[in-house]
């Protein structure tokens, strides 16, 4: 059961006292490692270590792989090409359009690989912390996407007036016109960035909490609670947790895909001539 112990040292330590089961809360996601002075709100946390490590891994992987490209690809070049091809063609070209997609491919590839690795960090043994379950991570990525699609739209639609005009599709009768404008304004500037950040954050947080409940519950049933029936239930809970880990992998890949896909959709909206 060292798996669980690594996952949440704090809970495992406090839960081992033989008391009642303590359900995991959102407090498990705040794990400061190095604090500065007496300030409790500013620290190098487990998630910041994971973000730095994944950024280093991605940088190392793509830089060393693209440094020596050969006509007959090595295994690593093959994987890099697959990832690049997927983001460039399936997400970039198909969504943004063959005319305008090229300048945005680096951004999309960075977003996809960074989010993917930070999500999957939630189930990599000994790391086991999805750094995207801290709101700061999706928030900053969303901020980048927000600036990119708004600046692109301002450039493409000839300034602020053109951008605001393009929010309302032509052919809508006056009166309803204003209503549509207000809704579209809220969609573009509030709802889109909000949901983009919260979707990734919420999915990762909920998924990690689910795994915590399964594994901590299994540990409690197996080691703390009396009775053979409870131990049987613990085995079932552990098996369920393993199953949920695979389910979690699916969600993590899907969320990385969806975040990048929606970023591409918003950029596509910005570069399109009409609404």
């Amino acid at each position, binding site marked *: 059961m060292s798996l669980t112990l690594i996952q949440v040292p704090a809970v495992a330590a406090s839960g081992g006292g033989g008391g009642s089961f303590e359900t995991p809360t959102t407090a498990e996601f705040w794990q400061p490692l190095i604090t500065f002075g007496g300030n409790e709100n500013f620290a190098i946390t487990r998630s910041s270590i994971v973000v730095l490590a994944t950024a280093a891994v991605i940088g190392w992987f793509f830089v060393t792989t693209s440094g020596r490209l050969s006509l007959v690809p090595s295994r690593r070049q093959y994987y890099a090409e697959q990832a690049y091809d997927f983001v460039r063609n*399936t997400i970039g070209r198909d969504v943004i359009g063959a005319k305008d997609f090229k300048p945005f491919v680096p951004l999309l590839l960075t977003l996809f690989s960074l989010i993917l690795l930070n999500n999957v960090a939630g189930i990599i043994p000994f790391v086991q912390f999805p750094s995207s379950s801290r709101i700061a991570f999706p928030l900053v990525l969303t901020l980048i996407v927000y600036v990119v699609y708004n600046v692109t739209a301002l450039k493409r639609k000839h300034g602020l007036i053109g951008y605001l005009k393009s929010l309302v599709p032509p052919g809508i009768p006056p009166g309803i016109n204003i209503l549509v404008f207000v809704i579209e304004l809220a969609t573009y500037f509030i709802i889109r960035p909000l949901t983009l950040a919260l*979707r990734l954050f919420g999915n990762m947080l909920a998924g990690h909490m689910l795994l915590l409940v399964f594994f901590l519950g299994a540990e409690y049933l197996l080691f703390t609670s009396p009775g053979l029936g409870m131990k049987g239930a613990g085995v079932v809970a552990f098996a369920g947790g393993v199953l949920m880990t695979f389910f979690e992998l699916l969600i993590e890949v899907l969320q990385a895909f*969806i975040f990048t896909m929606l970023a591409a959709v918003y950029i596509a909206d910005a570069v399109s001539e009409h609404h």
Partner: protein
Amino acid sequence: MTGNITLLGYGLAAIGPGIGIGLIWAAVISGSARQPEAKGMLQTTAFIGTALTEALAILGLVFYLIA
């Protein structure tokens, strides 16, 4: 029995997106049964639709957590 009543709110907020996502994928299944070659395009659109629908449930979860 103790607990937080806002969790019920999240349960209610998850009903709509649940139905919505079901409708989206039902349409994708019947669409790709009729026209198998359009499967990839349908799925891409469906993922975007799922993401937009799911946002409501995610908002509910976040509001539950901050309430």
